[in-house]
């Protein structure tokens, strides 16, 4: 397996096969925690940590575990990792932990993580799986932060509010407050999450189409 294209894996994770914008997975935590950019960032990083470790572990044991029992084995592995992340966040990021609450524990059933184990880690080497986990995780984090920021900006008129409390004092520089804007409460509520996600998905499709057009335009003279 020397022909692994790391560039391809990274590109897939961040954009082409993005967990949210392309695969439409993990929508439950996406909708629930993205009431602010800070929450999205915390949730995304926690998921990324689990995703990378899960991919590495699954890739390590992929030749030992038989196909019939693989799902329970993967789940146990992921659950162990999530418990570690859960306890770690409770210890070191307690404020954020209180905000995200149950959704940290629910990373266990995040379909994106089991999905990557099933579709990538079980078929590929350790290094490639680690890169895939990282790229997918960062793609997921990007989606969470983007949706969180859009909702927070429209709904409360702030960006990364309380980042210094939730993530640590060094993140205070992220905080932005739009003066004189009360915010549209609906964007913080669930309907706002669906509406905002819909517009973001439409936006991704428009960008994809433009990219494809440009590629076709540049490929044509080369072929001729």
């Amino acid at each position: 397996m020397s022909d692994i294209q790391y560039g391809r894996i990274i590109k897939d994770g961040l954009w082409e096969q993005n967990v949210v914008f392309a695969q439409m997975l993990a929508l439950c935590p996406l909708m629930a925690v993205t009431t602010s950019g800070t929450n999205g960032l915390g949730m995304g990083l926690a998921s990324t940590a689990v995703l990378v470790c899960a991919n590495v572990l699954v890739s390590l044991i992929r030749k030992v575990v038989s196909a019939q029992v693989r799902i329970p084995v993967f789940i146990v592995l992921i659950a162990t990792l999530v418990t570690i992340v859960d306890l770690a966040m409770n210890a070191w990021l307690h404020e954020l932990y209180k905000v995200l609450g149950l959704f940290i524990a629910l990373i266990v059933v995040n379909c994106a993580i089991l999905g990557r184990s099933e579709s990538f880690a079980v078929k590929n080497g350790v290094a490639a799986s680690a890169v895939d986990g990282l790229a997918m995780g960062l793609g997921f984090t990007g989606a969470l932060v983007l949706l969180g920021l859009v909702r927070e900006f429209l709904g409360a008129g702030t960006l990364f509010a309380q980042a210094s409390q939730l993530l640590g004092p060094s993140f205070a520089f992220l905080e932005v407050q739009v003066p004189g804007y009360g915010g549209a409460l609906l964007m913080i509520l669930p309907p706002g999450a669906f509406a905002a996600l819909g517009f973001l998905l439409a936006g991704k499709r428009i960008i994809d189409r433009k990219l494809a057009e440009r590629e076709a335009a540049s490929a044509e003279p080369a072929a001729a």
Partner: protein
Amino acid sequence: MTPATLTAQTVASPHAHGGNSVSRTMFRVQLALLPATLYGFWLYGWPAFFLWALTILSCVAFEVLSLKLMGTPRVKATLFDGSAVLTGWLLAMTLPPWAPWWVAVVGGFIAIVIGKQVFGGLGQNVFNPAMVARVALLVSFPLPLTLWVAPLPMSTLPTPDFVSSLRIFLTSLPVPDAMTSATLLGHAKTELARGIDLATALHAGPDLSWIGMRAGSFGESAAILILCGGLYLLITRVITWHAPLAVLAGVAIPAAIAHAVDPGRFLSAEAHLLSGALMLGAFFIATDYVTSPNTTTGQIIFGLGIGLLTWVIRSFGGYPEGVAFAVLLMNAMTPVIDRFCKPRILGRDRKGKPLDIPENA
């Protein structure tokens, strides 16, 4: 020789055309809204006119934008069916008369883009666009959406002239307290929450008024004018009586029973009928062709549901007014209602079996 089933002759075109069209229906509904609208301008002055104009303008603008983005080939034809104007008009009627300009713009965006065009345009929307926008605005901006100006002819303060009205509209200046007033439903809810009996509370509270001399949304207060508009629509057969009557009955019957049992806790049927958006909802919202059931039986169930839910929300809910919420909930029920109340197919009975054809016909 000819079998009994084939007695009908094929008629060649051109067939007779009734001349009806989407734009004519929309125009008639607008005509029916006109008296209550003009009266609203008189009640609430220039700010109400600005709000009305900008809401319609923003609905039309977002309609044009959506149609352009979707690449609709017949932008003009789709635009001039008048549905965007009507949506904006209905939305404006349900807004507080002195709401600032951005409420109109955001409302237009929500109604047209999220409420209608996302689903595919006129005829495809699941929910009534005007009500979607009304609810979204109320949930998003509770403060400006619950600021009720008392009708100017009742106010002790002088009516704002054109320029100061424009300033009220554009800069969202705080409305002087002396000009605001509670709505009857809002007043009843607050007083009940404070533990005060309705009999005592309403003694000093806002009065009922058939002619709209009460605080409320810009186009909802004059029950009698809305009723006239509704009757005009009934006479011109734009709407049928089923849904409106069912809505009114759905509110009035439980209200009358509850009021008879405990007048200190429940408002009377008359108060319910003359308050809030009920009249407008019954005649102009519940009769929307797109979002209401197809059959008359279905429309009666739909209307009763709206009425009952409105009464339940008003009496037990967190918001004082519930017509918009009730309409949206019943809009969601419409596909289910349509599934159970299907129209009879021509030549078949209600269960879908072919009708018996007499042998010697």
